[in-house]
């Protein structure tokens, strides 16, 4: 275990955390303001990745692909909100879970019909494909560094929107006090649709950026969706700050756990057992973290309503 390995793993963790934040931010706002569990959030992430891959291979430009995916996914998200999800706000959580579970199945099949069951190729853009030397002797992939940069930029933008603009004021009012949100009347419908569009756009960014690292395939949305839920539950539902801190926590714990636990255990247990147990422990770690947080703080670290 060298210092550079540890630094690299922490950077990987921050990078995963920031991507999770992009998903969790939309999820937590929808959750906090509309009291809506939207499992289909992961489907939007998947759609974003597929759109990016398609447009990128058609135009040859990754950045054009990302732009198109953001617009396309936002539109699909808003259409979904206006057609189906809107009907579910007043229903109980069970109905929301099941209806959006149904949407996952539908979207997965549609994607499979259009793009096929095999993973789709999405490469990082040429400019960012190599490693960069951050300090002499420490090289880190440029694309991952780019992800961290974009993640921080989007996080700052989001904080600016929520804390400094009029729309953000509504959002905050809605997240901390639902009656207040309802009292805003007609505008609320538009606001909800816009928040959904924003959430979908963030999904698309995450899908486009993680596509080249993970893989673009049917079902990619579900595994990351559960992580995003863990994030917002740890952070406290409805809180953007909670989502950010929860995301970084989950990202670092998960990445570091996977990389370092087997190494740490090797000295104690021997190589085979360490790989085996270390792997199991590492994948369980974030759920353990969530259970612990909820045990001490049943409403997450930063509850939006107290």
């Amino acid at each position: 275990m060298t210092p550079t390995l540890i630094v690299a793993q922490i950077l990987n963790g921050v990078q995963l955390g920031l991507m999770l934040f992009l998903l969790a931010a939309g999820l937590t706002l929808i959750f906090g303001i509309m009291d809506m569990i939207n499992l289909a959030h992961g489907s939007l992430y998947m759609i974003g990745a597929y759109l990016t891959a398609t447009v990128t291979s058609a135009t040859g430009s990754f950045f054009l692909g990302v732009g198109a995916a953001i617009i396309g996914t936002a539109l699909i998200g808003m259409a979904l909100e206006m057609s189906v999800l809107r009907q579910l706000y007043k229903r109980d959580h069970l109905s929301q879970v099941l209806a959006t579970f149904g949407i996952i199945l539908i979207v997965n099949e549609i994607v499979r019909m259009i793009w096929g069951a095999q993973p789709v190729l999405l490469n990082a853009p040429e400019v960012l494909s190599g490693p960069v030397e951050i300090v002499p002797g420490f090289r880190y992939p440029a694309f991952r560094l780019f992800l961290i940069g974009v993640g921080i930029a989007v996080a700052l933008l989001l904080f600016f929107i929520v804390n400094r603009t009029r729309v953000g004021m509504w959002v905050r009012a809605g997240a901390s006090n639902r009656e207040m949100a309802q009292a805003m009347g007609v505008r609320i419908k538009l606001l909800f649709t816009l928040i959904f569009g924003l959430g979908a756009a963030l999904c698309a960014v995450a899908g486009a950026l993680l596509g080249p690292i993970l893989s673009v395939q049917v079902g990619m949305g579900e595994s990351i969706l559960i992580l995003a839920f863990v994030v917002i539950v740890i952070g406290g539902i409805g809180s953007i700050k909670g989502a950010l801190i929860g995301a970084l926590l989950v990202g670092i714990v998960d990445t570091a756990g996977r990389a370092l636990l087997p190494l740490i255990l090797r000295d104690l247990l021997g190589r085979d057992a360490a790989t085996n147990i270390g792997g199991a422990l590492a994948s369980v770690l974030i759920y353990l973290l969530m259970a612990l947080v909820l045990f001490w703080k049943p409403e997450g670290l930063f509850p939006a309503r107290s």
Partner: protein
Amino acid sequence: MTRAQMLILGVITLGLILVPVLAANNFTIKLFSRLLIFALAASSLNLVLGYGGMVSFGHAAYFGVGGYVVGILTVSGIASPFITWTLAVLLCALLAALIGAISLRTRGVYFIMITLAFAQMLFFVFVSLRQYGGADGLPIRPPDPLRDGRTLYYIILVTLGICLFLLWRIKESRFGRAVQAIKENESRMMALGYPVFRYQLVCFIIGGALAGLAGVLNANLNAFISPNALAWSQSGQFMMMVILGGVGRFWGGALGAVVFILLETWLGSLTIHWQLGVGAALLIIVLFAPGGLVGLVSSANAWLIKRRAAA
């Protein structure tokens, strides 16, 4: 139960008893075995979710663990069903006690998510247990009499019958009424002097144990167990079955399971994109028939009676 309901139940029971006699092939017997097993699993979730009001998104954990207990014991040379089944059910009850004791500190969405988290933990534990097949799963060789499809079918049928009778008595008992009233109005039950937490926990444990039993049967039927049995999509499927049949209606779980599996089998034979149909059916049920199928039947029934009375 009214006489008409007794009659229907009698006919269905008779039909189920005759299935292995009339079945043309083993495929049919296996299909019916699956129907009965999932009817048990969904009914156990209906106890927790429908009667107890606890939206557990990790019910497949017990289903899978029950199967794994049988599998692991069998490959370790302990095949006697009396030992493996008892241990499986006891372990699932213990697991539910542990998970419930922690999860029931939270409410609402947090409860949904923490139960999901525990199920995910167990899922990954079994994925990483390479000596027991890891992600590929573990083939099991059930003891002799259970390898015969017909014998197993009757064992499953009797088990389901006993469990449903048990659930029926629970529903009407003091305990059952207390649990249902807690779902209706928790704060009032506390103010009446009920230790709410203990009732919910016991309900959660019974549900977990019965799901474990269903998992045991499932592992025997397939002679196989894999982490998929406790995947989150399996938990979602159980919830689907319950809402499809009717949340908190006694026959909701069983009916939902039967309709769901038949729908899945039928759509699966038509197209590889059968999940599209399942998803659409689910969406339609949630949006347009919140009471599930049992709800639809009873409102249709009420409508008929009203019409007859008017005529």
